[in-house]
């Protein structure tokens, strides 16, 4: 006597043609005498066929989305021929305008703080060392260290002496990427360490405010949540976490913002441990630069296998990335947050440029204002 679950398994193997010739014989004899089983097999076939239709449609829709995005970016004119007969809401343009206006005002605010009555004496581009151990270099980028030397001389009024103050308005940048549809974003802890405010932007989202939700100093992880009113949710993320370990030699790539533009980098997993044998990280042979910190690391199939965190300054091409399973484990420990981590698999089988097209909207430059 076999139980329901075993029957189900038999039915599935039968429908998928995985039974052995002898088993088929017995199964088919059984089918003849059991109407309920016949019905169950028919139902299972319908389910499998519905899955197969859905699978093909999902793949086709991914392709069509790429075609559509390309069409839209290439030809703005496409919006022109769409005339509306019915009178309908027109807030989109206004919203757009408001968005741009807001960004200008944020930028303006920052500039005002930095410049007001001051002289920018140096715009210092440098690296920021956070982990003390010898040659490990964290990779956030100090964008502007605006040394404020204020020299206020008011004409003719004697009481006002020359004053000079030093004030640092610094902004670090790094990279971050979407973790879930509803706006959780992951980056490196050292990028947002002292942040008072954090902004995310990329080609699609000009500026989104985000707040720190949780950090893990040891793993160098920071979880952000987009808090911007403009933001509702992402569309389904095309990638998902890989929970198993990568293999040495596996080809990997990252997207990051070592400068204002997104930069692609590729290489392979060179070692299963990170700096000084850190088992929570990989060593990868991707050339990375300050600003790459917090960038997602993908395997060939577009599965997320880690996050770029630093490099060894005394060895060529030795970069480090936190392993995805460590990230996943950490995220599970965060309480009070309902995070459903992305599990998309829509990048499988696409070539690299198409994968990047699908990915780029989910990778951000992380700007930090202290």
């Amino acid at each position: 006597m076999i139980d329901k679950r075993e029957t189900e398994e038999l039915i599935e193997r039968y429908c998928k043609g995985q039974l052995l010739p002898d088993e088929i014989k017995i199964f088919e004899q059984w089918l003849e005498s059991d109407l309920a089983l016949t019905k169950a097999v028919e139902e299972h076939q319908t389910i499998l066929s519905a899955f197969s239709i859905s699978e093909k449609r999902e793949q086709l829709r991914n392709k069509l989305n790429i075609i559509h995005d390309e069409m839209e970016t290439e030809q703005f004119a496409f919006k022109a021929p769409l005339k509306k007969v019915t009178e309908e809401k027109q807030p989109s343009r206004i919203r757009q305008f408001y968005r741009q206006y807001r960004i200008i005002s944020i930028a303006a605010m920052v500039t005002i703080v930095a410049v007001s009555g001051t002289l920018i004496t140096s715009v210092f581009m440098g690296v920021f060392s956070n982990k003390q151990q010898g040659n490990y270099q964290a990779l956030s980028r100090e964008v502007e260290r605006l040394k404020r030397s204020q020299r206020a001389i008011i004409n003719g009024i004697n009481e006002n002496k020359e004053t000079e103050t030093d004030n640092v308005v610094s902004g670090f940048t790094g990279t971050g990427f979407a973790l879930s549809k509803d706006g959780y974003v992951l980056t490196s802890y050292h990028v947002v360490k002292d942040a008072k405010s954090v902004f995310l932007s990329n080609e699609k989202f000009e500026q989104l405010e985000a707040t720190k939700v949780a950090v893990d100093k040891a793993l160098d992880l920071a979880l952000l949540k987009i808090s911007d009113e403009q933001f509702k949710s992402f569309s389904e993320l095309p990638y998902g976490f890989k929970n198993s370990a990568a293999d040495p030699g596996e080809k990997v790539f990252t997207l990051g913002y070592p400068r204002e533009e997104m930069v692609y980098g590729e290489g392979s997993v060179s070692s299963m441990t990170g700096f000084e044998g850190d088992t929570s990280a990989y060593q990868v042979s991707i050339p990375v630069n300050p600003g790459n910190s917090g960038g997602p690391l993908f395997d060939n199939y577009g599965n997320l296998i880690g996050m770029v965190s630093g490099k060894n300054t005394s060895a060529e091409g030795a970069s480090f990335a936190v392993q995805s399973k460590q990230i996943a484990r950490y995220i599970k420990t965060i309480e009070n947050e309902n995070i459903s981590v992305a599990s998309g698999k829509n990048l499988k089988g696409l070539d690299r440029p198409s994968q990047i097209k699908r990915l780029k909207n989910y990778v951000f430059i992380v700007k930090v204002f202290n």
Partner: protein
Amino acid sequence: MSSDMKQVIPVSSEEEIILALRRCDERVLKTVYRQHYPQIANMVINNGGSIQEAKDIYQDTVIIFYEKLQDEAFELTCRISTFLYSVGKRLWLKQLQLKNRFTDEFHEAGEAIILDWTEIGSNEDQYTAMHQALESMGEPCRTILKDFYMHSASMDEITEKFGYTNSDNAKTQKYKCLKRLKKIFFSLYNNETTE
């Protein structure tokens, strides 16, 4: 050679396009997609739809067309544009009906013909029921089932991804999920097909 050559396929006859699509030629798919988008998008937008809805309806339309072409028995008896427009119009009318947004007057943006929907829409019921059933499943069921049945992940991969202690636990979970899915799927599917 101008750089345009790479992007745009030279004008070819409808039969050539059909043959290429049957071969799954992606460059031709791209050309066809771009060519017919404005007409169907206009139809949707002129009849109360948003740009997003226009995109969705248009993609559903192209998917049906493409799927049909993979079936060797299917023969197109009208122009591609007429077929796409007619399918698109039908899908949009159905959607308006579902949302109770029916407009009194339909603003045509092309020429529609009457379709044999039992043949053309043969996959729709299965697809819709599966789509809705999966949507209504919670996690981890939805992802487990999609991974296994749609993304051909192995049980071992699923065991690891979801952190089950062994593959037997994962199998039990998958079994329970599938059982629930079947229940929801068939209640939707049998409803749709008897209507």
